[in-house]
């Protein structure tokens, strides 16, 4: 009862107890006086408002008969109500109803305190007798649909200026490629371990587990080979991404599988890369077999996907006692091959190293046999790479790399690298070829929550308002304002790696992998000028450039200029550019 302290009137302590329920005439009279005064002041003041006697008395009761405070409160309340009356006529009757039902003191105090509208409406909805809340409820019921729409508020950021403002380290992706068992995963595991991107405890765990199944030398590779099948077989199957930081750069490793069956996955990885690290097994015989196999195919693939710079890690040098002539021999053979593949000599770098022992990876080797090598270590070579600019101001394009269940809060997430454009939380996006819309609830850049993302970044988007059935890896995310077209046939200029005939092929673009057929060989072209040499050739020989028409059974989101790879029978037959 402490809140019944009376300020303006001196009260007998004796009167206090029974004074609440049956107010004495003296108090009543005083109340009447104050009420009239408040009403007068309200009418006279600017802006002029009217209030009922009941309202005034209620206010007076709360402000302990302080006339000035009551007037201020009522004036504020009334002006707000008249303002609200124009768009929403509901609150006025609500206020009246409230007054007539005699609200509890708490309610009114809260009313006075809360300025937020949402709070108020919630409060009125809690009253069962309230007519307005019933009306609101039916209205709400009408708004309910079977599909629950989640509204995500956009911050309406100017992403491009945010991007320019942000003081991020330069970020780069690189793909690790090479023949199977060249030691790609192990080398990258070593890099991560030495840079402390992975803690010693985890590494020790992997080591004991690997030894348990008799594959002790695979422990480092397990950092990237997370799949159970990959570990059991000791072969990388799918691409793995992992990031590490040096002083001024954030690198994302895209570790590609080397086995020929998983070249589609390697293509997906290489399409996310700015530059490539080609790992070569320097062991006797292994280098030679690799060069015939995936060393060659991978190098050609990354080149045809637009990668310019390539670092060649001549791995397992410890197995040949760091012999310089072996290194020179490999360097000479590989660089001549890479030059013919279209790499410029200044963009090729060779590093002799050993993934298993860690020599020349992050630290210079102390082995006396390596004293002949004065060049940079692998990590120094990585850092020497110039960053690439991305088309951030172009329309949004992102190829979905993976569709998965992120967590309980984010039941549907997609990940991938943004090819072009920018996006932010709350944006509506369009997926192709399904043509369905989705809203971005939240997003992560390199595993860190962010409000926006731009081209070149590796992002995870948590989506709402879409059925997962419409999302498949290989689909393309774009905006409804600038959608990517779905096509069933396209013309492209390709470099043939194998004989081309009108035949069935697999079409690859990043994660996208669809069957199709070469329906027409339009012409063979001159490599330099692009002029047509022979129209309608019967067959296109390896090494020649040709214009061909490819048809597909299903519509696929593709647009020029996109780099595509054509494969048949497990081999890459051609790669080129859409026209």
């Amino acid at each position: 009862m402490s809140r019944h302290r009376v300020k303006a009137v001196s009260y007998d302590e004796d009167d206090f107890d029974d004074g609440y329920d049956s107010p004495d005439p003296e108090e009543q009279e005083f109340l009447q006086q104050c009420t009239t005064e408040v009403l007068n002041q309200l009418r006279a003041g600017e802006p002029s408002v009217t209030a009922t006697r009941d309202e005034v008395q209620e206010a007076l009761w709360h402000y302990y008969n302080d006339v000035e405070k009551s007037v201020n409160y009522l004036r504020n309340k009334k002006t707000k109500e008249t303002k609200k009356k124009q768009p929403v006529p509901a609150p006025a009757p609500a206020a009246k109803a409230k007054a007539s039902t005699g609200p509890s003191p708490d309610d009114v105090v809260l009313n006075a305190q809360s300025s937020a509208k949402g709070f108020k409406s919630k409060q009125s909805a809690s009253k069962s007798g309230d007519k307005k809340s019933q009306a609101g409820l039916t209205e709400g019921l009408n708004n309910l649909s079977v599909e629950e729409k989640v509204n995500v508020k956009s911050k309406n950021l100017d992403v491009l200026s945010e991007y320019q403002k942000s003081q991020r380290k330069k970020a780069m992706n690189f793909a690790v490629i090479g023949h199977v068992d060249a030691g790609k995963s192990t080398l990258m595991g070593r890099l991560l371990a030495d840079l402390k991107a992975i803690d010693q405890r985890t590494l020790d765990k992997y080591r004991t587990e690997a030894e348990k199944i008799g594959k002790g030398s695979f422990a480092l590779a397990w950092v990237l080979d997370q799949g159970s099948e990959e570990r059991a077989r000791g072969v990388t199957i799918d691409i793995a991404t992992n990031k590490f930081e040096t002083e001024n750069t954030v690198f994302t490793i895209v570790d590609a599988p080397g086995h020929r069956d998983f070249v589609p996955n390697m293509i997906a990885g290489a399409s996310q890369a700015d530059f490539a690290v080609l790992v070569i097994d320097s062991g006797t015989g292994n280098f030679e077999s690799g060069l015939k196999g995936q060393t060659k195919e991978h190098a050609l693939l990354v080149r045809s996907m637009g990668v310019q710079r390539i670092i060649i890690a001549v791995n397992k040098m410890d197995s040949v006692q760091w012999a310089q002539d072996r290194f020179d021999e490999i360097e000479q053979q590989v660089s001549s091959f890479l030059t013919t593949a279209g790499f410029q000599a200044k963009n090729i770098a060779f590093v002799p190293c050993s993934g298993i022992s860690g020599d020349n990876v992050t630290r210079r080797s102390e082995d006396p046999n390596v004293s002949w090598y004065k060049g940079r270590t692998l990590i120094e070579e990585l850092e020497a790479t110039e960053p690439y600019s991305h088309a951030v101001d172009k329309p949004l394009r992102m190829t979905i790399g993976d569709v998965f269940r992120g967590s309980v809060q984010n039941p549907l997430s997609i990940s991938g690298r943004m090819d072009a454009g920018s996006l932010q939380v709350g944006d509506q996006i369009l997926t192709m070829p399904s043509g369905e819309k989705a809203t971005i609830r939240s997003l992560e850049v390199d595993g860190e929550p962010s409000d926006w993302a731009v081209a070149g970044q590796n992002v995870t988007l948590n989506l709402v308002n879409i059925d997962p059935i419409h999302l498949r890896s290989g689909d393309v995310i774009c905006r409804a304002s600038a959608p990517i077209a779905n096509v069933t046939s396209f013309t492209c200029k390709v470099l043939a790696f194998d004989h081309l005939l009108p035949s069935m092929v697999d079409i690859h673009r990043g994660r996208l992998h669809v069957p199709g057929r070469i329906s027409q060989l339009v012409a063979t072209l001159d490599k330099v000028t692009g002029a047509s040499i022979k129209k309608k050739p019967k067959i296109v020989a390896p090494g020649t450039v040709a214009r061909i028409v490819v048809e597909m059974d299903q519509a696929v989101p593709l647009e020029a200029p996109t780099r595509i790879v054509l494969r048949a029978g497990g081999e890459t037959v051609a790669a080129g550019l859409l026209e």
Partner: protein
Amino acid sequence: MRLIKNKIEHNGSGTVTLCPEEPEDMWHAYNLIRPNDLLRASAIRRVTSTQETGSTTSARVHLMLEIRVKNLDFDPQSSQLHVSGTIVNETAHTKIGQHHTLDLELNRNFTLEKEVGADGEGVGWDSIAVQMLKDAVDEGGNRRAEAVAVVMQEGLAHICFIGQFQTILKQKVEMSVPRKRHGGGDHDKGMSKFFQVTLDTLLRQLEFNTNSAALTSNEAVRPVLLASPGFVAAGFQKYIQSVASTTTPALKRLLPSIVVVHSASGYLHSLAEVLQSPAVKTILADTKYARETKLMDDFLEQLRKETNKATYGPREVESAVDQGAVGRGGGVLIISNRLFRSQDVAERKRWVSLVDRVRDIEGGEVRVLSSDHESGRRLDGLGGVAALLTFPIVDDDIEEDDQ
């Protein structure tokens, strides 16, 4: 297919009565029956008769109807053939000229008549038709080699039945399997769900009895080929084994007939590679399919070598035949049976005469590939006709013709 009666005259006209016995025979019938032929088969027709008072009664009556074929509709998935045309024989219930669609049924005879018109309207039983008839009539009963193939990759499986003359895609299973992610992820879970769905679908298509009582039944199980790049097929086999040893013991009957082979991708056109693998060859020894695939590979090999001893495309092949390059001593004309299915009589005649010429005059070999097989589809991509030549032909002159 059983040949009941054969009355083909020397001039190529005549009738043949056949009894289809298995679903694939419908495919043969589809190739044999051409527009303008006369087809006689049993039919059920709903007949509506009007009484004098104006009231109508309709009844289903069983009739023997003879129709002049206008159109064929073949559903390879369910092996059903619907032939529509106008009725030519008069019965108590139908009038001449009314339309009817005959549904050919298994184990019910039908009679096919081909006519040779005076003005060359019909083509009659030409050499190709006779050859097809021979193929269709299974005399030795020795070509039952059939297999089921599951061509798969992560999240994608094609279940298809490989028959003597056609490959039927029965069902495609497509699922989104989460990729491997840092720190576990749902990849393994996704894969086992994918395997489960694929196995369920496969068993449904095989009409495989999974009752435990069926474990002892002697019903033959067709060979099941599991093909994939990488380890998906092997993983699927392991999954079937684990299901067989835990929940569904009846699956043990299936296990011995499973063969795991390698394929380049999970798409259907990888089937060619599957059927060339040694493991499969031993099972499906000397099927028409395997021979056809081999032939196509030889042809492509010649093209690759750029010996100019192989050519493709209608014009090029005709020109090669004109030059006598498709003759004795290794000349092979490879032609897709899609060309013979042409609605245009002149078009068909063109190809039949080409075939006859190569076989009878030039002395070369002729191989008709089924367009419903993978090899035939490859051939279709090349224009439906190709040839291996006895001597190299430089095709520069042909190119000028094109322009």
